[in-house]
């Protein structure tokens, strides 16, 4: 073996690809699911993939937090709401009318193009050139000072998720 680092780099790249495939396949499961609960489990798979990507980037803490908060708390809460609405024997008709799927595809494409615009405009810097301190203390300080706005915005997204699950639950078992 000429270069001792090379095999490890190869292994880590395999892991990277694995996590990306995991995240993407979760998304595909979520979109193509027949039951709402399967869609949510697709989300769980995606979140695990993202947690793996954090692990690949060297931030073990963020990756654990991803599992603890998103999979352990938020997904469970959403499952709880969904369980109030349907069980396996109640297969529902998927509302796949032409107009609906057209609108959904349009909205998805618009969001995607917005995201690509931002990705294109942003000047990307590798994390290592900005800081080499990935400790919990550093992460905590950054989150509550420099990135406070982003941090709060994420909680807004979660609020939407909770409201959405309540709306789903309300139309369920009652009828």
């Amino acid at each position, binding site marked *: *073996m000429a270069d*001792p680092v090379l095999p490890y780099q190869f292994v880590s790249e395999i892991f990277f690809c694995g996590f990306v495939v995991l995240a993407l396949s979760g998304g595909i499961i979520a979109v193509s699911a027949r*039951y709402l*609960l*399967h869609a949510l*489990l697709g989300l*769980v798979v995606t979140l695990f993939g993202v947690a793996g990507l954090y692990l690949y980037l060297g931030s*073990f*803490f963020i990756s*654990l*937090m991803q*599992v*603890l908060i998103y*999979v*352990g*708390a938020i*997904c*469970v*809460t959403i*499952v*709880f709401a969904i*369980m109030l609405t349907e*069980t*396996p*024997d109640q297969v529902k008709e998927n509302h796949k009318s032409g107009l609906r799927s057209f609108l959904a595809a349009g909205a998805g494409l618009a969001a995607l193009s917005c995201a690509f615009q931002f990705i294109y405009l942003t000047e990307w810097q590798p994390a290592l050139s900005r800081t080499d301190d990935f400790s*919990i203390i550093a992460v905590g300080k950054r989150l509550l000072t420099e990135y406070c706005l982003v941090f709060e915005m994420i909680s807004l997204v979660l609020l939407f998720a909770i409201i959405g699950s309540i709306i789903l639950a309300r139309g369920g078992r009652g009828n």
Partner: protein
Amino acid sequence: MALLPPEFIRILISSVLIVSFVFLNAMILVYIERKVAGHIQRRPGPMEVGPHGILQTLIDGLKLMGKQIIFPDNIDKPLFCIAPLLAFVPAVVAFVVIPFSPKLQAVDLDMGIIFILALASLNVLAILLAGWSSNNKYSLIGAMRSVAQNIAYEIPMLLSLLAVLFMTNSLSMKSIVEAQKPLWFIVVQPVAFLIYFIASLAETNRAPFDLPEAESELTAGFHTEYGGMAYGLFYLGEYANMVMVGAITTTFFLGGWSGPPLPYMEYSGAFWFLAKVYFIVFSMIWFRWTFPRVRFDQLMNFCWKIMVPFGLVNLMITALVLKI
């Protein structure tokens, strides 16, 4: 040949040891549970297989392994199969960071307790999937009770652990034990200890908080439809969780491996560690056969009106005392 780095071999060996520890533990604990239950109810418990029935759980385990797993009609089969694995695997993996003695620890992560909590949070997901995919009203009711209970009791549990973490300033299991060299935290934080112990009984679905599997009303709750080794995995997961609760309690409040000195303390500290763990587990069994099951409204009221306020006040007092 440097194909396998020594670190990899070390992890491999410790994983094998941990898995066998978990299996052995479940076997011993099922026996202890049945014996203790028997003696508390003034009957001998298992007596037939081996002297004093000591081989009973081994035979039961073999029987479970030999049994066919029956899939009922109209279940959600992939989820039905994933659920027992999801209940068992995280419970075992969490043992990687448990410090049995100064040297007997597979990995010393600098955020060990978060690692354990992250894995423990997957247990609820497993119960939910089991209950939902079984397509059985008992399973579904059991699963929904379980998740309501787990979400509620996670809060006082984390509050009590946080009070200890304020004092140690570290999330590593090893340094938490080392911080207790002068004094065990059960003396400094008795309220946190009580809150943690009660909340963990609820988190592991043990009596008197065993509403998710209340056998007199829900048959067996979320695992009603499971048989054979699928059922066995839920059982193993439950006992692994019990030992995990004992291990966390020992690490956080009872000084971990510390105790009267033994020869080769760096390894034999595991004796004191396990003794404390088993004492905690024994108390959990003792609780189960002493207290009747609570009602659901009592369970929720107790959590939100007593445990959470006490946990918050305890946390604030800890923070104040540490700052002054």
